[in-house]
Every structure is written in C-alpha cells, then in structure tokens.
C-alpha cells in the first residue's frame, strides 16, 4: 500500500511571527519546521503501511524558499521519499493554487492508494486544501478522519463530528484529512535522522509541474490591509474584603455560568 502525505513546513510557532509589510503575508525566510498537525498524518500513514504489510509513505510539500528541515523530520519518522515544490513565484499563492500544485506533485509521484492531509494548517487555517486536491484528482474524500482501517480496496473511517463520529466507507484510492491527536506521532530515532539525510528529496518548480499562473498572479484573493487585533481589556480586580466570594458568585451568575 502506498500513501502520500501532504505536509506543510511552517515558521516555528514557538518564535514570534512577523508580517512582511510589502505583501502583508507571514514571513517565511528562516528555518521552517514540520507543522505539528501534519505529523499526525505522517504517523497514520506509517501505521497503515505497516498494517498492510508493505508499501511506502511519500511526502509532497510546497514552500517558497527551498526549506527542507520539516520534510527531513517527516523522512526521519519513516517516510521514504519527498517532493518539494519550491519556487519564488509561489509567494502569495492562495488555497486553490496550493491544491493545484500539490495535486500535480502527487501525480508526479504516480499517485497512491491513499492521500492524507491535515484538517488545516497551523499557520493558514483555510482548511480547504485537502478537499480541493481530491476534487482536482477526481478522488473521493473524507474529512475529519479520526480512525482509519483498510480492508482490501475499501477504507473504513470513523469521521469526527460534534456529537461523536460517523462510520464512513470509501473505495480506494481516496483522500482523507485527519484530525489532530488521532494517533501519537513517533519521535524520530537517531538512525532515522541519519537515514533521512540520504533519502530522495526532489525539488521542483511550479513550472516543472505545468502549473501556471501561481503566487499573486494566480491567486483569487488580495490582502488589502492588515491591522492590529484589539488589545484585550484588563479584567475586573476585586479587593478581598472577606465577602469577595459573593461578588465572584454574582459575576458568574451574570455570565449564566452557574
């Protein structure tokens, strides 16, 4: 069984992010790391391939600056190979362009039995790219997968809902988006880290994949303005005079919390 995971490399969330004032987009100049929400997809793919008894996990990713640190992390976890689409022209790409580029990268890898994406990235939050890829590739897609089992050419999915989960069956090949926390991503072993440095990682441009126009030229959106979020107002301070609890109770009652 072959699985392709769409992974995003993002600026380290532990570091303060910054906007590029010329384009009003997130600065992505420095080191990028594997989006944590994609580590669940990589882990699920590795587990499915192991359960199937054969096959491999491949990665597709898109980044404007040629960064591969995040991909190396996923390769160290156990993925076999990766394609990075990296091209200065990609800067400003919207979700649909991203989906077109990743779908083309999937096709360059020859497709797969299953394509996995995260429900949404941790820095963009559009939450639409996996389904757009499925549409472009003409595949069935299931969102919010929390448990996946493969039975021959059929996939059984428990799909997370607000009330519980739906049981969904889909033929393969297909695309799923997985929710965070569905599996426990493994930490790369030292042998995995060493091996990742020699695994195939092909870097191509959008033009190599035949996708044009991309970036701002291909985007159906423009960012016209960015403004500071309103600062949080200070909370109410209550001096304890021995009867403070009545004020706290009253406050909570007003909020209909008790």
């Amino acid at each position: 069984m072959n699985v392709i995971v769409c992974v995003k490399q993002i600026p380290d969330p532990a570091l303060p992010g910054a906007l590029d004032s010329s384009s009003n987009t997130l600065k992505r100049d420095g080191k990028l790391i594997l989006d944590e929400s994609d580590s669940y997809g990589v882990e699920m793919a590795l587990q499915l391939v192991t359960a199937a008894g054969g096959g491999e996990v491949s990665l597709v990713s898109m980044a404007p600056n040629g960064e591969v640190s995040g991909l190396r992390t996923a390769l160290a976890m156990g993925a076999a190979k990766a394609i990075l689409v990296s091209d200065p022209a990609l800067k400003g790409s919207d979700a649909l362009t991203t989906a077109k580029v990743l779908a083309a990268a999937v096709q360059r890898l020859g497709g797969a039995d299953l394509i996995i994406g995260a429900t949404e990235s941790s820095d963009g939050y559009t939450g639409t790219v996996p389904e757009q890829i499925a549409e472009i590739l003409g595949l069935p897609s299931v969102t919010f997968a929390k448990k996946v089992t493969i039975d021959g050419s059929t996939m059984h999915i428990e799909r997370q809902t607000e009330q519980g989960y739906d049981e969904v069956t889909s033929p393969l090949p297909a695309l799923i988006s997985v929710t965070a926390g569905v599996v426990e991503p493994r930490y790369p072993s030292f042998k995995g880290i060493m091996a990742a440095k020699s695994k195939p990682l092909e870097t191509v441009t959008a033009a190599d994949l035949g996708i044009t126009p991309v970036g701002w030229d291909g985007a159906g959106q423009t960012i016209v303005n960015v403004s500071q979020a309103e600062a949080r107002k200070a909370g109410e301070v209550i001096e304890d005079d021995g009867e403070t609890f009545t004020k706290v109770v009253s406050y909570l009652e007003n909020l209909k919390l008790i």
Partner: protein
Amino acid sequence: MQFSFSSDQRDFAASLREMLTNEFTTKQLREIWDTGTGHDPALWARLSDMGVLSMMLPETDAGMGADFTDVILLLEELGRAAVPGPVFETMTVGALALHGTSFATGIADGSVAVTAALLGEANVPHAGMSDVVLLRDGDCVSAVERSALQLTSVCGLDGGRSLSTILRPTGLGTIVAIEWSEAIDAGALGAAAYLLGVSSRMLEIAGDYARERRQFGQPIGAFQAVKHLMADALLKVEFARPAIARAAWSMAVGDDDRSRDVSMAKVLVADAAVKAARSALQVHGAIGYTWECDLQLFMKKAWALIPAWGTTTFHRRRVSDAVLGVRV
C-alpha cells in the same frame, strides 16, 4: 581536530530535547519520586526507541558505534531533564563494558539497565531497578546479575536515584572487557556531562524566577547583586563545558591523558554545580527549598551526583598525579 559539534550531533540533541520537553515534565518527575522506584519504564522505552541508550554500542549489537563526542550533548539533555534511573551509567560504562555479551542487545532494546559500584560505594545507586551491576575485581570489572545480589533499600536524597546496600556472594560475576580505570573514566565523564545539564537547568529555573519575582517595583533580576550572582554561576558552568568536550575527545581518540582530562572535567563541573545550586537557591530564597518548587528536584540531583564517580578530592588527585607526577 574538530572543534564544533556536527549537524548530526546537534540534530540528535535537539530531537532528544524535544522529546523530553514534551514527554517528561517536572510533574512527571515528581510522580516518579513518589513511586519510590527512581525509574520511569515508559520514558526508558522511549529512550530505547530513539536509540539513546544504545548509542555507544557497536552496530553488531544494534547500536550506532558512537563515541563520547557523539553522546555528551545527549547526556547534558538527559541531565537537563533530570531523567531518573541509571541512564548515563547504562549508556556509557554499561555499553562499553557489556558490548558483545548477551546483555548488549538488552541495552539496545531497553530490557537491560546497568549500574555500577566501582569505588567501594556503601550505597549503590539504581541497583534495585538495574539488571546488571558492575563491580570492581582488582584492576578488572565484573558484571553481576542483580538477581544474584542481596539488596537492602536505603533512603536517599534524590528520588530519581534509588539507593541500596548490596551483598555479593563470593566469586560471583563475569569479568568484562573493560579495565577498572577505563570504567571509572567512562562513568565519571558520563556523570560530568549529565551534571552539566542539571547545572544549566538550575540556572534556567533561577533566571526565570528572577525575571518573574518582583520586589521594590521591579523584577529581582534587575538588581545588580542578583545579576552578579547569576553571572558568576553561569561563568562556572560555561567554563566546565569545554573541559567536558575536551575529555570526550580524549576518550574518543584514546589519548594518553584521557584520565587527566576526565578528572579535570569532573572537578570543574562539580564546582560549577555547587555554585549553580547555591546561587539558584539564593535567588529563590527559602521557597527554593520547598517541595513545591522545581528547583529542589535539580538541587538534590546535583548534590547526589557531585561526589558520584569520584569525589572532587579523588579527581583533583588524579589531575595532580598526571601533571606533577607526584602526589601532593
């Protein structure tokens, strides 16, 4: 000579730090203290899965054939998290003593933990949870299975380092492929690198506290007296770091002066740990000594390890012997 760590060495350390930060918080460390075992089997399994425990085993024993220059950053990270159990003992002297034996694959898969009592210690650390205890036999070292020893648990300072007295039946044990002096060098360097991590963490905790705790309208870290205290401690810790790197290189290449270099490193880091613990406690005030404050977990670890694998007197004497050729 390579004067900096390779990208692989830095990647390994970063990966280990990420795992420990996510999976082994001080809350979990306290829980281990509460169990009284001084051991966390789940964490041990993770360290085994990552390949931390088997780094210094040869590839034929499912290890990575690493030397001390490859593992000192890892040992520092383990100390920074105060990982309980005989982790540096198993990784260093355990792997070097038991490679090629039936115990080696157990070290690699996490089923065998190794501790040692090579300096006549009355109370042996980690013996209760180790599978093999290394003991001195003249200039040689013997491996004795824990099940063959009579252990009596004793109360210790550090809850991540259980102590026992041991009674060894006469003649029991198998001589292993490491001389006593080599084993001391390996264990002392392992302890030194781990203790460096403990010391760094104490200063981090104290620094965080100094930035947060306010007196007279400003953080206490803004006062010059506190700054000097912290800077002096940091200086000691940072000056011990290159000595550990030098000792690791000497051990890796089999330098004739490796015992001197190991002892120099152990003395410098022990002095740094004393200074770091005292300064961190001074910055905290009495709260630093309380059970609820994380600092005490690391101070007690430091105080337990400062005399372990040779006191500073023992190691100063080895340096003196090596440099002067006479005992002073």
